[in-house]
């Protein structure tokens, strides 16, 4: 400790300084800095690329959802398939094949 004590003493008192430093030791500086930086991020608000990234994420999610729903609906829908040749031959005609009969008879007559 500095022996003399005058208002003109321009040197820090090492002993007193060390004791005060211990007395005022704040503790975990890393946690404090992390807290300050977190507040800094909050205060700064969203950046343009942050907003775009959030939009992009939402867009991708929406597109994936729409694709899933569309796929599900398409998969569930009854298939209106075209009749096969066998179906056409087996199934009774809905109406009289007037034109076909006429054509067949004409062709048969020519033979």
């Amino acid at each position, binding site marked *: 400790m500095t022996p003399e004590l005058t*208002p003109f003493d321009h040197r820090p008192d090492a002993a007193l300084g060390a004791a*005060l430093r211990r007395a005022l030791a704040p*503790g975990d*500086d890393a946690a*404090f800095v992390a807290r300050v930086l977190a507040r800094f991020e909050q205060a700064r608000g969203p950046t343009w690329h942050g907003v775009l990234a959030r939009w992009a994420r939402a867009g991708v999610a929406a597109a994936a959802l729409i694709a899933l729903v569309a796929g599900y609906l398409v998969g569930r829908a009854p298939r209106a398939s075209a009749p096969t040749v066998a179906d056409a031959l087996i199934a009774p005609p809905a109406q009289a094949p007037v034109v076909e009969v006429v054509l067949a008879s004409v062709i048969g007559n020519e033979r």
Partner: protein
Amino acid sequence: MTTMASEPQPPGGAPRIEHGDEAALVARALAGDRAAFGVLAERYAAPARRVARAVLDDPDDADDAAQDALLAALVKLQQYDPRRPFGPWLMRIVANAATDRRRRRTVRRAEPLDPNATAGGPRPDVRTEQRALAQRLREALAELPERRRVAVVLFDVEGYSHAEIAEILGVAEGTVRSEVFHARRRLRVLLADWKEEDA
């Protein structure tokens, strides 16, 4: 401007930060570089917290004040003159933030007293002794006028010169000398008493 050898250094602490380095960090932080602000926050976290605690006896209040000050400094960074050292500029904001918080605070929360801090209590080991001394120093600091305790912490703990402290506190250099002198006189008596008790 760089730190001169004749300038007071904080006892037992890290050497004062090079000014040129700080100016570059401030410029980067101003440009939106989060990492640069992070470095500044890391460097000044401990001094800012100590100075805030010199004003506010409650450590949580002091941390809140130091945090507010660091964030306010970031907002005001454009007002900082890069030709001058960054530390005193920041410490002025810290001291003001702590003072504002103390004024706003209506209920003063008292830190529970360490039973070993009272004279005559058993002191089984050095660590307990140091804790008790720290407690007594904090109590002694709390008895001092606010400007006096900030002045002595800035001078003897943080290593700022009288002129820098005058700038931080917005008072004349002679006033700072007087404040440091009176604070030391009180605290040295306490330290001496403690050593006598300990002997």
